[in-house]
C-alpha cells in the first residue's frame, strides 16, 4: 500500500509513543543466541530484554492508528521481498479486527520493545519472522483491540462488555452507535495495556485474513517505482560518495599517486583515505565514482596484526578445494549413532564418494549503500539496509563512541537480501559513510558500485564432503558417514568457539530423518582465508545437495528406485511420508524416466528432500539436455511448514527459492584467482535469467505441526533433485556445482 519513504517524512517517535522504549545495551547484543555470527555458547543474559510474557506488549510502540483509520504498524522485521510486512498486517489485523489493506507497515527502529521472537532475538533471517513471532503478534493485535474497546466504552459511556468490533470500528449494537478506530486511537493508545493474561485470541476457524491469499501491501508501489530503498534516499545538504577498495581484503592504503589531479576533477568535493579503501565525496555520485576509480593507489600488504581476515595474494578457489579435500582431521562428530565402523567393515557393499560445492555471492539487485547524517545536537542518523538493527546500532556505537541512544537507525525496504545484510565486518558500507559524514560535516550517501560489491561481498562457504556408506544384502543402506572439511559461516564471523560445532556448517548433513541405523556426521574445521556469510538456506544450500545426491548413488548401487528407497527409509515418519507422496502426486505420479517428451526431448526426473528451518520440502525435477547443458523443465515442490499465514506469498517464496536453487545448480559460482574475484559484475557472474527458469508447481501441505519457516526451506532440495535427474538421464553422476562446469551428451 504505502512503502514510500515515511522514515524521512515522519521522524520516529513523533506520532508514536516510544517513551517506554528501552534500549538494548551494546553488551546485550553478544547475548543473543548462536546462528547469526554471534559468539557460540555465550550465556543468554537478557538484562534489558523483556521476558517472554512481556514480549510484544508495548502496543503504542508498534501501532499508530490515524484519524482516517489507517493503521501504521512498526514491524520488528525488515521487508525484503519475502512478504513479511504483509504477513504482519494479516496477523495483527486479524486480532485487531482491521483489514490488512488498511495497514501501512514500516520497519521498527532498534529497541527491545521489538524483540518479539520466541528465541529472544530480533533479526530478519533464518526464515524466523512469522514462525517465531506469530502468537506474540496476534496477541499484540488483540491487546490493541482491547484498548480500543475500552476507549470506546469510555467515549460512548457504556460497559465494555456491551461492545464489539467490526473491521476498523467499535460497535455498540444495542444503541446502533459505532466509532471508527481512527476516532478512538488517541484515547486508546494512551491507556494502560491490559494484562496479556486477560486476552482471548480469535478462534482460527474464524480467521478472515490469516491463511488467505491476501494481496501484498507493496505490490503497486513496487510496480510503479514508488517504493524507496536505501539507495534512493536523499536528505538536505547531502553529498554523494564512492569508494575504491583494496584489491584484497587486509591491504591498506600506502599513498595516492595522483591525489591532486583527482581533487581537481569535475565535481569532486574531497578525497579520503579509509581503512582498506579510498573514497571520493562529490555533489553527484557519478562524479564520485569516476573520480575514485581514477585514483592510483599504492596498496600495502596486510600487516601481521591486521584485524581483518587478510586475503592471501596466491588464493585460488579451485586450489582451495584441493586443499580441503586433502584435510585428514581431526574431525569432530555432530551425530554419531550405532556402529558406523562396524557396519562398514561388515557391509555387503561399500560406497564412497567425495562431493564439493562452490563459493557463491549474494548478488542482490540493490547495491549496498548507507546514508549517514550527524545532527546539530550530536546525534547520528543512519539509513541502511540491514537484517538486524540492534546489532548494527551497537556496532555503530562501538565504532563512533556514541551512546546507542544517540544513534537513530532507519531500515528502508531491502532490494533483496538473501543473507547479505547481516553484520559483516568489512562487508557493509556504513562505517565508511559515517566516517565520511564526520569528515565533511555534511550528510553523505555512500553507494558501493556493483564492482565494489562483488569485491567485498561475503561468500557462501565451500565444503568438501567425503561419504562412506554400507549396503546390506538387499541393497538397503545400513550405515552412512559424512565428514565435511569446511568452515561454517557462524564460526567464520564470530570466531571458532572451542570444540563446539557450528550448526550452520553441517545442517543438511545433520538432522536427516532417514532410518539408517548407523550414522556419523562430522566436521573437519578448516579456517579459510575468505570472508564468509549467510546465503539463503545457509548450510542446507550445500549439504542437502551432497546428502541427497549421495543417497541416490546408494539407491542405484543397491538396485533401488530412489523414490521408493526414500519412502522405505521414512516408513516410520508419517509426516515426511505424506510429503513425499504429495510431491509424487503433484508430479502426476513418480516416474523416473528417461522418456521422450512431446517436443521430442529425452527427459528424466529426480527427487530430493530437505528439512530446514522447521519446515520440510520434497522436490521432483524434470530435466533434459540442450546443447550440452542442463535444461530444467519442471520443478514440483511439496512443502510442509506446519501451518501458514498467506498461501500466495508461500507460493511466491517457493518460486523464488527454486530460482535461486536453480541458479546455484546450473550456473553461478564465485571464482577467486590470485586472491581476487574473477567476477566483479553480472557479466562474469551470471545468475539465473527468465529463459532458464523452470515451471514451478507448488503443493502446500499443512500438517498442523509447529509452524516452520518459508523463505529458505524450499531451496535446498532443488539442486539434488536436478543432479539426480541429470545422473539418471546421462549416466554422469555430478558431485559438484555448478553444472555449467560440465558438458553433457
Amino acid at each position, binding site marked *: 500500500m504505502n512503502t514510500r519513504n515515511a522514515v524521512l517524512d515522519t521522524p520516529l517517535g513523533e506520532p508514536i509513543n516510544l517513551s517506554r522504549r528501552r534500549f538494548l545495551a551494546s553488551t546485550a547484543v553478544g547475548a543473543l543466541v548462536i546462528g547469526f555470527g554471534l559468539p557460540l555458547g555465550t550465556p543468554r543474559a537478557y538484562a534489558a530484554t523483556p521476558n517472554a510474557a512481556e514480549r510484544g506488549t508495548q502496543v503504542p510502540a508498534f501501532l499508530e492508528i490515524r484519524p482516517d483509520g489507517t493503521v501504521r504498524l512498526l514491524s520488528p522485521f525488515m521487508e525484503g521481498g519475502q*512478504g513479511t510486512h504483509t504477513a504482519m498486517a494479516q496477523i495483527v489485523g486479524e486480532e485487531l479486527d482491521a483489514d490488512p489493506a488498511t495497514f501501512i507497515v514500516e520497519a521498527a527502529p532498534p529497541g527491545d520493545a521489538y524483540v518479539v521472537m520466541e528465541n529472544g532475538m530480533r533479526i530478519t533471517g533464518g526464515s524466523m519472522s512469522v514462525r517465531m513471532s506469530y502468537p506474540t503478534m496476534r496477541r499484540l493485535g488483540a491487546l490493541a483491540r482491547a484498548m480500543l474497546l475500552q476507549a470506546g466504552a469510555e467515549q460512548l459511556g457504556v460497559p465494555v462488555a456491551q461492545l464489539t468490533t467490526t473491521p476498523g470500528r467499535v460497535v455498540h449494537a444495542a444503541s446502533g452507535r459505532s466509532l471508527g478506530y481512527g476516532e478512538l486511537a488517541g484515547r486508546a493508545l494512551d491507556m494502560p495495556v491490559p494484562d496479556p493474561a486477560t486476552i482471548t485470541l480469535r478462534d482460527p476457524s474464524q480467521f478472515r485474513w490469516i491463511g488467505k491469499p491476501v494481496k501484498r501491501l507493496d505490490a503497486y508501489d513496487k510496480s510503479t517505482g514508488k517504493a524507496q530503498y536505501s539507495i534512493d534516499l536523499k536528505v538536505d545538504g547531502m553529498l554523494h560518495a564512492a569508494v575504491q577498495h583494496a584489491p584484497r581484503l587486509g591491504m591498506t592504503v600506502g599513498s595516492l599517486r595522483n591525489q591532486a589531479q583527482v581533487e581537481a576533477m569535475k565535481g569532486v568535493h574531497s578525497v579520503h583515505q579509509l581503512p582498506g579503501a579510498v573514497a571520493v565525496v562529490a555533489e553527484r555520485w557519478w562524479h564520485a565514482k569516476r573520480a575514485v576509480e581514477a585514483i592510483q593507489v599504492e596498496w600495502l600488504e596486510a600487516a601481521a596484526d591486521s584485524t581483518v581476515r587478510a586475503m592471501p595474494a596466491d588464493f585460488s578457489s579451485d586450489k582451495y578445494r584441493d586443499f580441503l579435500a586433502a584435510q585428514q582431521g581431526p574431525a569432530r562428530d555432530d551425530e554419531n549413532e550405532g556402529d558406523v565402523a562396524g557396519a562398514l567393515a561388515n557391509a555387503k557393499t561399500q560406497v564412497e564418494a567425495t562431493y564439493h560445492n562452490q563459493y557463491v555471492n549474494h548478488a542482490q539487485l540493490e547495491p549496498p549503500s548507507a546514508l549517514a547524517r550527524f545532527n546539530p545536537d550530536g546525534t547520528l542518523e543512519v539509513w541502511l539496509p540491514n537484517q538486524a538493527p540492534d546489532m548494527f546500532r551497537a556496532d555503530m556505537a562501538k565504532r563512533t563512541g556514541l551512546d546507542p541512544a544517540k544513534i537513530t537507525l532507519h531500515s528502508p525496504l531491502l532490494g533483496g537480501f538473501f543473507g547479505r545484510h547481516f553484520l559483516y565486518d568489512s562487508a557493509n558500507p556504513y562505517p565508511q559513510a559515517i566516517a565520511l559524514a564526520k569528515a565533511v560535516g555534511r550528510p553523505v550517501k555512500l553507494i558501493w558500485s556493483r564492482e565494489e560489491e562483488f569485491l567485498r561481498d561475503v561468500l557462501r562457504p565451500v565444503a568438501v564432503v567425503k561419504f562412506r556408506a554400507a549396503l546390506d544384502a538387499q541393497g538397503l543402506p545400513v550405515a552412512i558417514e559424512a565428514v565435511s572439511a569446511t568452515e561454517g559461516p557462524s564460526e567464520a564471523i564470530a570466531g571458532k568457539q572451542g570444540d563446539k560445532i557450528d550448526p550452520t556448517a553441517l545442517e543438511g548433513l545433520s538432522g536427516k530423518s532417514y532410518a539408517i541405523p548407523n550414522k556419523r556426521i562430522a566436521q573437519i574445521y578448516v579456517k579459510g582465508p575468505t570472508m564468509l556469510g549467510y546465503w539463503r538456506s545457509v548450510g542446507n544450500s550445500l549439504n542437502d545437495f551432497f546428502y541427497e545426491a549421495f543417497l541416490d548413488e546408494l539407491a542405484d548401487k543397491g538396485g533401488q528406485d530412489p523414490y521408493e528407497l526414500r519412502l522405505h527409509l521414512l516408513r516410520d515418519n508419517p509426516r515426511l511420508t505424506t510429503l513425499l507422496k504429495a510431491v509424487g502426486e503433484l508430479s502426476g505420479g513418480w516416474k523416473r524416466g528417461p522418456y521422450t517428451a512431446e517436443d521430442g526431448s529425452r527427459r528424466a526426473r529426480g527427487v530430493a528432500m530437505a528439512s530446514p528451518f522447521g519446515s520440510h520440502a520434497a522436490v521432483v525435477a524434470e530435466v533434459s539436455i540442450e546443447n550440452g547443458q542442463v535444461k530444467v523443465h519442471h520443478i514440483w515442490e511439496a512443502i510442509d511448514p506446519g501451518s501458514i499465514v498467506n498461501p500466495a506469498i508461500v507460493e511466491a517464496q517457493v518460486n523464488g527459492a527454486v530460482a535461486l536453487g536453480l541458479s546455484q545448480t546450473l550456473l553461478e559460482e564465485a571464482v577467486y584467482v590470485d586472491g581476487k574475484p574473477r567476477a566483479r559484475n553480472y557479466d562474469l557472474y551470471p545468475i539465473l535469467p*527468465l529463459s532458464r527458469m523452470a515451471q514451478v508447481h507448488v503443493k502446500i501441505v499443512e500438517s498442523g505441526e509447529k509452524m516452520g519457516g518459508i523463505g529458505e526451506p524450499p531451496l535446498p532440495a532443488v539442486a539434488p533433485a536436478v543432479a539426480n535427474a541429470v545422473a539418471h538421464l546421462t549416466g554422469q553422476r555430478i558431485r559438484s556445482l555448478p553444472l555449467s562446469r560440465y558438458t553433457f551428451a
Partner: protein
Amino acid sequence: MQLRINQKSYEVDADADTPLLWVIRDDLGLTGTKYGCGLAQCGACSVLVDGNVVRSCVTPVAGVVGHEITTIEAIEADDVGKRVVAAWVEHQVAQCGYCQSGQVMAATALLKHTPAPSDAQIEAAMINLCRCGTYNAIRTAVHDLAVQPARQESA
C-alpha cells in the same frame, strides 16, 4: 542541455557522457529507475526512449537529447504501461521489487512492438535479471496481457 522526460522539458547541466541513469536519479530525483550493475547486464535501469527500451546506465545523456524519454514514474500515463502495471499488481509479481521498474519498462516495450508475444519472444525480450525469482509471475503477467487485445476486439 534540454531533456524531454515524461512529457516535460528539463534543463540539465551535466557532462555529455554522464549516463542518463544518474541524471534521472540524482539531478531530477526520479529514483524509480534503479542502479543495479552499471554495465547493461541487469536491466534495473531500463527506460523507454521513443518507445524503445534502453539501458540508461550506459546511455550517455547527450545521446538522448531531442528524444522522448519515459521513466517508470510516468508509465501509467501510457496505455500499454498502465495495463502492464495493473497486470503486475494482479499477478503479485513483485517480491523485493528492486528490479520491477525495469521489468515493467521491458514488458511495456515488448507489448508495444509485439502485442501478443510468444513464449520465445517473451524469453528474448524479458532478459532483465531478478534475484528474487519472479520470472514465472512475469511470464504469466505478460501472457495475460497478450490476450487482452483480442478480448477487446471481440467485445
